[in-house]
């Protein structure tokens, strides 16, 4: 048996590590995905005034601090018995949807698109954002940079800061939006919608226009028939900020729909001795191991899952794109992991349209930005759809609002089991007896992983391109490195 290590990949709460064991016949025996770090937020949030958790938990992730800020804000509302005012809720949602649009933009253009636009087997020196710009045209690069910069400007206007925003308070936000700020927010929202349409056009041309890529997306090597989870509004349409949690089975039928505060009845987390990150599964189905199918409680979250779990999008352009997505990919549910990239663009369009819709509401500049707490309730659950999956914050407090317990299930964690399964399936499909472990192969294993946009796939790739990997083929008994394949930028 040989051990193939992809070590370290990069981070979630720390660094990721993939261990691939190859047996004596040269076939993949097993794959382990490990998270080697734990920081203990759930422990040190205890003892803090509950409202401070909106300022502490964003430090779980500097890539998506807005998601933690909002999930915390909602849990804090519940702990304080403070129902947000209409404007307070609107300002939170504008910030949050603008952030979601920006985050999806970064992932698609910087991380995912180079595989398709430039090609999965292309020279790695070209398979990056710069290669993409060369192929699609320099104006595309300019648009991506403007989209990111303007979106972050919007986040700063409402949130105070673009990394680790601060402005939510129980029942809303701290600061009203001025008329001038509202005009700028509208302008940014308009640009977001325009940009999202451009992004879908790029996808049409370079991915859907190439039957090889469509075949790759739909290939069995990248598919898993799992349950899917996503937040939906009262019409079962996708919503990132508010709603119930809906889970559909591998046939696409509703398995369960529950209010966020009931999450403990439906989700259970499992501990494995080789990773610091737990593995959530559906309590109602049970844990059957790292396998897919109707009998396995493994579920998936994030864009692919959210579109499968909902009946549609609440905004017109995104709804049209949602319909085209399922028509093209053979109906619901879509199990193809790589289709996540298209799903992400449908969501990008939705988030931009939703930002625009809210930014044009006349109440957006109302000074009534927060309500007042009605009394300490002692408990609160706050759930939002983070770009990488459903994010749960659950707090308990004493009668003074001091936190006594804190439980968090973060976006990427939902997909922990599925990521492990996808890596194994891709590695088994790609690593063949006697075959060479090439750079292109590495990239194709990585594509299984990248589709989930695990949290460590952060925006620093912008200028340097590909996520570098090294695969070392080791003799299992001695640990001796027999062969090394490296991929640099």
């Amino acid at each position: 048996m040989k051990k193939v290590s992809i070590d370290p990949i990069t981070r979630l709460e720390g660094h990721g590590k993939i261990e691939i064991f190859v047996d004596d016949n040269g076939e993949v025996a097993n794959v382990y995905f490990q998270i080697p770090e734990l920081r203990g937020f759930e422990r040190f949030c205890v003892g803090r005034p509950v409202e401070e958790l909106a300022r502490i938990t964003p430090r779980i992730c500097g890539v998506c601090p807005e998601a933690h800020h909002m999930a915390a804000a909602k849990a804090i509302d519940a702990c304080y018995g403070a129902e947000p005012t209409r404007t307070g809720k609107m300002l939170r949602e504008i910030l949050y949807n603008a952030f979601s649009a920006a985050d999806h933009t970064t992932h698609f253009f910087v991380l995912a698109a180079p595989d398709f636009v430039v090609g999965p087997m292309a020279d790695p020196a070209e398979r990056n954002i710069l290669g993409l710009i060369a192929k699609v045209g320099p104006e595309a690069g300019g648009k991506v940079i403007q989209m990111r910069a303007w979106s972050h400007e919007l986040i700063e206007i409402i949130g105070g800061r673009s990394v680790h925003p601060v402005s939510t308070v129980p029942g809303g936000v701290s600061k009203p939006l001025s008329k001038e700020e509202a005009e700028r927010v509208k302008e940014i929202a308009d640009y977001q919608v325009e940009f999202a349409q451009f992004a879908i056009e790029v996808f049409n041309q370079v991915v859907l226009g190439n039957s090889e890529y469509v075949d790759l997306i739909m290939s069995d090597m990248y598919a898993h028939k799992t349950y899917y989870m996503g937040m939906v509004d009262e019409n079962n349409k996708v919503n990132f900020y508010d709603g119930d949690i809906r889970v559909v089975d591998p046939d696409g039928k509703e398995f369960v729909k529950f209010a966020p505060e009931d999450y403990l009845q439906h989700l259970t987390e499992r501990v494995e001795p080789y990773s610091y990150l737990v593995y959530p599964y559906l309590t109602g189905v049970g844990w059957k191991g790292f396998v897919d199918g109707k009998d396995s409680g493994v579920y998936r979250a994030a864009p692919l899952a959210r579109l499968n779990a909902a009946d549609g999008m609440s905004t017109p352009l995104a709804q049209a794109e949602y319909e085209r997505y399922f028509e093209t990919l053979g109906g619901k549910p879509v199990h193809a992991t790589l289709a996540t990239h298209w799903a992400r663009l449908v969501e990008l369009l939705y988030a931009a349209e939703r930002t625009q819709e809210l930014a044009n509401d006349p109440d957006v500049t109302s000074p009534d930005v927060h309500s007042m707490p009605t009394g300490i309730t002692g408990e609160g659950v706050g759930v939002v759809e983070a770009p990488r999956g459903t994010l749960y914050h659950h707090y308990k407090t004493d009668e003074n609002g001091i936190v006594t317990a804190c439980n968090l299930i973060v976006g990427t964690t939902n997909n922990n089991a599925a990521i492990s399964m996808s890596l194994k399936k891709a590695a088994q499909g790609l690593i063949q007896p006697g075959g060479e472990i090439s750079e292109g192969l590495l990239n194709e294993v990585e594509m299984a992983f990248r589709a989930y946009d695990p949290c460590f796939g952060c925006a620093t790739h912008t200028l340097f391109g590909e996520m570098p990997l090294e695969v070392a083929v080791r003799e299992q008994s001695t640990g001796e490195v027999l062969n090394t394949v490296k991929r640099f930028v």
Partner: protein
Amino acid sequence: MSKPKFAMYWAAACGGCEIAVLQIKEKILEVGENFDIVFWPVATDFKYKDVEALADGEILLTLFNGAVRNSENEYMAHLLRQKSQVLVAFGACAAQGGIPGLANVSNAAEIKELVYIDNPSVLNPDRVFPQERFEVPEGELDLPHLYDTVRALDQVEDVDYYIPGCPPEGPQIWAVLETIIGVLKNGGDLPPKGTVLGAGTKSCCDECSRVKEEKKITGFKKPWEVPWDPEKCLLEQGIICMGPVTRDGCGGRCTSVGMPCRGCYGPPPGVTDQGAKMLSTLAAIIDADSPEKIAEIAATVPDPLGTFYRFGLAKSMLRRAKV
């Protein structure tokens, strides 16, 4: 002539420092022009053995972000110190322990017990815990050792400079890099060792746009308990704001939206313990006629440890008697 080498590493951190570096936007190209980036886990080759293979001092500049929370973090701190001429503690976690340092109210066993046993969503009747070495049927897997105590970078290694902030602000980061690039190109001296770079020498109050008058408070309030006022000092309204005991450099962003400072830029020059300084600051502005009354009002601060030492617990004078 080859370009000087640059590295950036994240230990126990959130990734926000990496995003902050991106906020320098197109200037990052100048970093690329002036440095050979040899190690940056998210951006370039990130195998540790490539760093191990470098000569001692071969890297000119390493920006190290994140606290030291486990054995892997510590190993990298020592390795990068050995390989770097200039080692910078970048961001609040590396400089002061940051928010992960709040875990020093606890220890590794307690954290694991909570995360893997007590959390209400966890089902773990066999009490399975992550193991540093674990035999699977196909071979052996390993994980780093989680420490009981979180440390700032200079508590495990010799540090040349500090860039505070959670995260440091983009323009401040660029100002530091520009200075270093300038010295490389045109000669001159780098700042003295131990200097706090990318920040001011006063307090956050000096850059906060709110108007400060006489501070006299009779009790504490939460931000939502006062009417919105973009002009008035938050502390004067009774909202606990760490501005007076925090170094300037952020531009007063939190207070601009009516939220109090939590001290991420660390203590200003001359202050070693930010939390202790805040206590004395509060005592001085409480409007009461007797020391007993002052103490009584001061005691109503809900969470002094988590508020006054939000980012600086690991580096503070507070030390626990036992783990």
